[in-house]
């Protein structure tokens, strides 16, 4: 029944999906943290930028962002992100860039809700010791914010893993693109859909369960 799968590189596509997800997750965690720092910071210009960024980017469909990365950045502006003439590499990198730009707005808001769970007194005590704004954020507020953001961040990560399928729109050879190819070539619609769904559940279910457990484990006791 599963014989037809031998003709396709399902493992390779799965691996591309994992790479897209992991690289985008790391990138959006970093950029999202910077955005969150801007949004809670004392500099009005940065606060304004952070707020504007989040409210614009999170409201644009991911497909539009990914397509713009390919058609706008690459084909019109000639951005290759160091990929040379290798379109597979260029498109993969553009997809990661698009996913980072998009997902970081959600990471920022998940973190900001985490920051709001840290009592004001924690930052006041840190300032009273003579720590600078950056130190207060880095040493006292963010470590506690991350701990209480694990579960909302897990939600963002699960959404990101599934959102990697949008990269198919610019031809990145990940799982959803393979699914389209298989559906076109084989008369096994239900089976193919089930296999692909399983691939994603294998990724997302443990992510949710493990991070849920981690979230409980690292929760700050007050």
């Amino acid at each position, binding site marked *: 029944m599963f014989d037809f799968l031998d003709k396709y590189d399902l493992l390779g596509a799965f691996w591309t999906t994992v790479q897209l997800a992991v690289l985008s997750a790391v990138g959006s965690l970093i950029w999202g943290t910077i955005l969150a720092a801007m949004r809670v910071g004392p500099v009005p210009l940065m606060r304004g930028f952070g707020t504007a960024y989040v409210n614009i980017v999170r409201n644009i469909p991911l497909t539009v962002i990914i397509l713009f990365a390919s058609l706008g950045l690459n084909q019109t502006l000639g951005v290759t992100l160091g990929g040379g003439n290798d379109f597979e590499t260029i498109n993969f990198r553009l997809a990661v860039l698009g996913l980072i730009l998009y997902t970081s707005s959600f990471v920022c808001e998940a973190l900001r809700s985490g920051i709001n769970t840290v009592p004001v*007194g924690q930052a006041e*005590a840190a*300032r*009273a010791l*003579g*720590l*600078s704004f950056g130190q207060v954020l880095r*040493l006292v507020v963010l470590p*506690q914010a991350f701990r209480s953001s694990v579960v909302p961040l897990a939600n963002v990560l699960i959404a990101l893993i599934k959102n990697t399928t949008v990269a198919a729109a610019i031809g990145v050879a990940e799982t959803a693109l393979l699914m389209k190819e298989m559906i076109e070539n084989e008369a096994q619609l239900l089976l193919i859909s089930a296999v692909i769904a399983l691939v994603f559940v294998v990724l997302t279910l443990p992510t949710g369960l493990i991070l849920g457990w981690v979230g409980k484990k690292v929760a700050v006791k*007050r």
Partner: protein
Amino acid sequence: MTEVSVAKEDKAATGELVVLKSVNKHFGALHVLQDIDLTIQRGEVVVVIGPSGSGKSTLCRTINRLETIDDGSITIDGKPLPAEGKELARLRADVGMVFQSFNLFAHKTVLENVTLGQVKVRKVEAKKAEEKARALLDRVGVGAQADKYPAQLSGGQQQRVAIARALAMDPKVMLFDEPTSALDPEMINEVLEVMKQLAEDGMTMIVVTHEMGFARSAANRVVFMADGRIVEEATPDQFFSNPRSDRAKDFLSKILHH
């Protein structure tokens, strides 16, 4: 030459440490601090009392600029309070603060709470900072709890750790913002004992409190505030036995006759 240096030392030992001059602050329409003039000498223990909403906590918090002021001036050890940035952080390191709700860093152990400021602000070596932290924790009687997290300690223990955390910075002056108001009655004394000890050791202290016993026994001076003003300043004896203002008489009659 010698005389000059002696005179200088005298000034250093007894001079003015914290000076507030015509300080005003508003919260919206509410004038919470009205023309506050207050001078605290080095080594002095000043207790600020008054009814709720009289501005005493706000006053305490303006001294290390956790609250900004609208006008007037605050100087600490001769230097005006800087508005922002590194200068302000440096000054705050010299002013210890103890909060009503302890505010120990919840994700760090007791020991880490007391070493953090030393290492990150004073740039003390980690090992030396730990030695000092352990000595201070022993001094306030919670040495055995060093490796626990704040949530595992009682309120009284947490507040004593908070005092140790502030002392670790070698502050010139300590601010106490209602340090016993969030404590169970049986834990109040263990914190007051530590504060009395500090006062006897010559620490300059500004204490906002409702503990009249502490005011009587440890304060050099009592400052009575009401409605954003300093209504009366006197020695504890004078104030408690013979208050001059009606407002103070009223306040004392309400809290002392039970």
